[in-house]
């Protein structure tokens, strides 16, 4: 009996422990962490070594101070110095190509004495080959103004679209004004045989003779046209 006592007390202790464990509420034994009220917020240690700063979000780092947003000035605007750059480039081009402004005046749509559709125009080029014809259409586009001239060379209808302000054009003269103001801006009907004016060479020759008398020079200012025009202006030659 005396020998069994230590064994009994040991089993008793173990049983008591097991009994205690079972008597605990279920939530305490569970492996799941159930919601147990608000989590207590812990403060940072007062002096956190700098080596740990990188583990913190940037906004929580001790060296982060709230920076106020400052609106800086933008550099001055280029657009305000030049609101229409395309126009400016065109003006610069005009100043280079037509410094006197004489040709711009000739091809000014507001000028009553200027060139109009239906006029007979004589153009001379730097290469020395003149071309004359009836102006079928004038496209007013600033430095890109062009005129479409139609003539007959060796009985073949010939048209040439000339950029008026091209550096290859030496001069543009109106040999004869239209007798009547045409009621159309584009006289494409002149291509029809019924309306075709034919060669305007005689009219141009008469103009050149008259000009020579007035200026006292020789009428060979513009050479008489021989056959077709070669070279010409970039911008297109069209022949018919």
């Amino acid at each position, binding site marked *: 009996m005396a020998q069994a006592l*230590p064994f009994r007390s040991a089993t008793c202790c173990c049983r008591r422990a097991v009994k205690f464990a079972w008597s605990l509420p279920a939530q305490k034994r569970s492996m799941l962490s159930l919601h147990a009220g608000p989590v207590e917020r812990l403060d940072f240690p007062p002096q956190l070594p700098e080596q740990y700063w990188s583990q913190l979000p940037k906004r929580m780092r001790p060296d982060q101070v709230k920076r106020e947003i400052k*609106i800086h000035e933008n550099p001055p*605007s280029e657009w305000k110095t030049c609101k229409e750059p*395309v126009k400016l*480039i065109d003006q610069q081009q005009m100043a280079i190509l037509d410094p006197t402004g004489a040709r711009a005046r000739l091809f000014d749509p507001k000028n009553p004495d200027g060139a109009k559709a239906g006029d007979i125009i004589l153009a001379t080029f730097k290469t020395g080959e003149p071309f004359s014809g009836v102006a079928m259409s004038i496209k007013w586009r600033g430095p890109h103004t062009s005129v479409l001239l139609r003539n007959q060379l060796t009985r073949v209808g010939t048209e040439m679209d000339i950029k008026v302000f091209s*550096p290859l054009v030496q001069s543009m003269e109106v040999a004869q004004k239209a007798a009547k103001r045409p009621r159309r801006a584009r006289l494409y009907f002149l291509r029809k045989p019924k309306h075709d004016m034919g060669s305007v060479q005689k009219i141009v020759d008469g103009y050149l003779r008259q000009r020579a008398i007035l200026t006292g020079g020789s009428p060979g200012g513009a050479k008489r046209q021989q056959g077709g025009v070669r070279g010409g202006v970039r*911008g297109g030659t069209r022949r018919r």
Partner: protein
Amino acid sequence: MPPKTTVLVAVPLPPSFLLPRSCLQSSKRAVQQTRSFGIKSLDSPRVNPYNNGPGLPGLLSTPKAAYERKIRSDTLPLRTGALAIKRGMTAIYDTESGERIPCTVLQLERNQVVHHKTMKEHGYYAVCVGAGTKHPKNINKPELGHFSVQGVGPKRYLQEFRVRDEQGLLAVGESIHATWFMEGQYVDTRSDCKGKGFQGVMKRWGFGGQPRSHGHSLSHRSAGGTGNGQGGGSRVYPGKKMAGNTGGQRNTVQNLKILQTDEEKGIVLVNGAVSGPKGCLVMIQDALKKPWPNVPPPPKPVEKNAELREAIGAKIGTSQNGL
């Protein structure tokens, strides 16, 4: 009868797995909880699954290898580009040859370097250029903070220009003017071309359409067949050209010559056409397929940064100036 005296015998505790958790944790609970830092993985270090290591040739499908290929092919510009607005087209005459040169007028507008992308932080080198201006109330706060920290005003447009190395990183806050481009040099322009809306296959892909007559009715501009029958799987293959939304996407025009520049007015005159309507944003950068232009070196970034630091009293160029 005298009370029984219980005899207490010291008994060793059973092994820990038999003990309740409350007994086990009692000792730990006594210690005050402190916040600990650092995460240690429970997993063992992973074995390198790639066939690389010392003595082996480098891997080809890595960002590093891709960058090296890019450097070797010399397709990254040495310096940044600029942002411009397309103002329209015109032509100028070459007074010597009489040639008429069609050109596009581009205008730079308040170009400034806003940010850098670096190899260390972002994996590549690029200069973030801002253009135009915007009212601060129309910008969200993170972006406004970004401009504030970089020391530049709020910008309407922001674009990146990749550069080869850090030599090409123009200092933050530096203005880019039209004279950044030399007359006679070649550039590439990138812009969004004009949107055409929903278009048929003839306009979108240049299909021929069907004849006007010879028995064709109601299908003169349609696509026709879209694939073969049973032999081809009885289905339409992915990528089949069909009608759909056309235009409006980014287009690059390469090798355009710079004809004129005007620093004060911000005008850059470029030979030929640039994609997009008037008023669209155009990115101009040195041409990839021509020799790099011989340009004077840009101002030293150190001086500029020192000025800026004084001006705004904030940290510039440090790694902590994120959004």
